[in-house]
């Protein structure tokens, strides 16, 4: 069945600040009890994901002006999809962030990326493909911005999906 398209007129003067908010949310793929999906014909998840008691998303602090997300096209004619790639910097080398950097590199995640000036988030990862995370630690130089870990994430996505549920379930002690 062919797609139907409709007119998309001037979207108005909404906030379109670039980058991500000063946080991202991550949950280990294997800990989801119910990974919600968009309703048929839509590209938004409107119901909160479900986890076992105590499990859920964690929040990672992101240094201002370092969080970004980009979708680029993948594939050829008649078989296109997206590659989602992004990065964010977390300052310093606390025990918690070192533990995260060491353990996350071999795990698979669902990531929620909050947009500034909006209650909407992009969800990266689903039941088909999950997010991989790499980290790069750099002391920098005395005159630079300071020490920290730059995390990079990537995932194949058949479509771009937003998460617009009213809540994000958080892990206990997240």
């Amino acid at each position, binding site marked *: 069945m062919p797609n139907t398209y409709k007119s998309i007129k001037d979207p108005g003067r909404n906030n379109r600040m670039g980058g991500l908010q000063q946080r991202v949310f991550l949950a280990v793929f294997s800990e989801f009890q119910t990974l919600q999906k968009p309703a048929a014909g839509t590209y938004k998840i409107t119901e909160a994901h479900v986890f076992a008691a105590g499990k859920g998303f964690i929040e990672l602090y992101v240094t201002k002006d370092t969080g970004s997300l980009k979708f680029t096209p993948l594939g050829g004619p008649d078989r296109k999809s997206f590659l989602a790639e992004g990065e964010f910097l977390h300052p310093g080398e606390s025990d918690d962030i070192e533990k995260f950097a060491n353990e996350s590199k071999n795990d698979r995640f669902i990531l929620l990326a909050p947009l500034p000036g909006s209650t909407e988030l992009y969800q990266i990862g689903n039941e088909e493909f999950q997010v991989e995370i790499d980290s790069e630690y750099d002391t920098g130089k005395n005159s630079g911005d300071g020490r920290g870990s730059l995390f990079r994430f990537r995932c194949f996505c058949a479509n771009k999906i937003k998460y617009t549920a*009213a*809540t994000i379930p958080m892990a206990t002690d*997240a």
Partner: protein
Amino acid sequence: MKANETSVLPAKESAALPVASYKVVGLDPGVHEVYVPLISKSVVVADITPALFELLHRLGWPHVEKS
């Protein structure tokens, strides 16, 4: 009334304003803490204060209901 005597009005019961009470609805019972995009903040469900309930209700968070 004699000098140095003060009159005391009969005690009046203070008319307390009705305080709205709220409850959380529609969350999975196992959920202890949620991030609420409307306020860009994580909240522990059991610790939501009356002021925060009021704010969440005013903003239209669907998981708060006046009881």
